[in-house]
């Protein structure tokens, strides 16, 4: 059964790291690729490919500041085929390399207070 665009967007949000193509997404929506791209852009203001890329970068930004994972690992974890392509896209859209992004935004991780209290760690 064809899925609505809301379902398609939710699917992309949840599985952005997986390999996916616009034709396959169009098939999920029960549309031709051409029609799907047009309808998607009318609804969201972006193309499916741009939407997917944005979700992947959102996830990468979070992982860069919240985890110690190497940049190459993060690139793979969010669905990019190579570190080079990830770095290129990241810098083009943010103006910073992934390393620069991480260095400027590294912060204390979110640790719920109940856990901090368990081990007598001072609240931030």
């Amino acid at each position, binding site marked *: 059964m064809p899925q609505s665009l809301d379902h398609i967007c939710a699917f992309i949000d*949840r599985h952005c790291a997986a390999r996916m193509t616009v034709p396959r997404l169009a098939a999920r929506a029960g549309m031709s690729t051409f029609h799907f791209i047009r309808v998607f852009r009318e609804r969201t203001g972006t193309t499916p490919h741009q939407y997917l890329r944005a979700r992947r970068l959102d*996830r990468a930004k979070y992982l860069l500041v*919240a*985890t*110690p*994972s190497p940049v190459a690992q993060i690139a793979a*974890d969010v669905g990019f085929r190579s570190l080079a392509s990830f770095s290129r896209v990241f810098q083009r859209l943010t103006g910073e390399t992934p390393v620069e992004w991480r260095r400027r935004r590294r912060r*204390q*991780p*979110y*640790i*719920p207070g109940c*856990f901090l*209290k*368990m*081990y*007598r*760690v001072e609240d931030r």
Partner: protein
Amino acid sequence: MITKLSHVTLFVKNQDEALDFYVRKLGFAVHTDHTMDGGFRWLTVTAPHQPDLEIVLMEPKAGPMLDEEAAAAIRLLLKKGVLGAGAFDVDDCRKTYEDLKARGVQFAGAPQERFYGVEAIMRDGVGNWFSMTEQKVAAAKSEA
């Protein structure tokens, strides 16, 4: 209004060994691995299809909530390996069982047919055991 569970605690004998199991053997992702001043290590992992549920891998230690007696009690339970921590969904129990066994994961036995699906019981090696279940509903959906 509460919307969802964001963190769940899994007590483990050793965080490094737990990291090896959940990340390198099961394929979970490290969400946060941060050691604070004073040595408190905040280590959380996420399952492949649940990036917004952090599993907190916690060594039981004395503090305001757990006195030493309580922490020792949990360590004993972990040492005995008797804590049934939970259940995982799996898409193909038999295949995953073979894959994980090849990676050194310990199971209580081979996958068994149940009325709800196919299930195997595994140990994480750091004090907990889990069911790993290919549910019949999920199997029917994947065949559709």
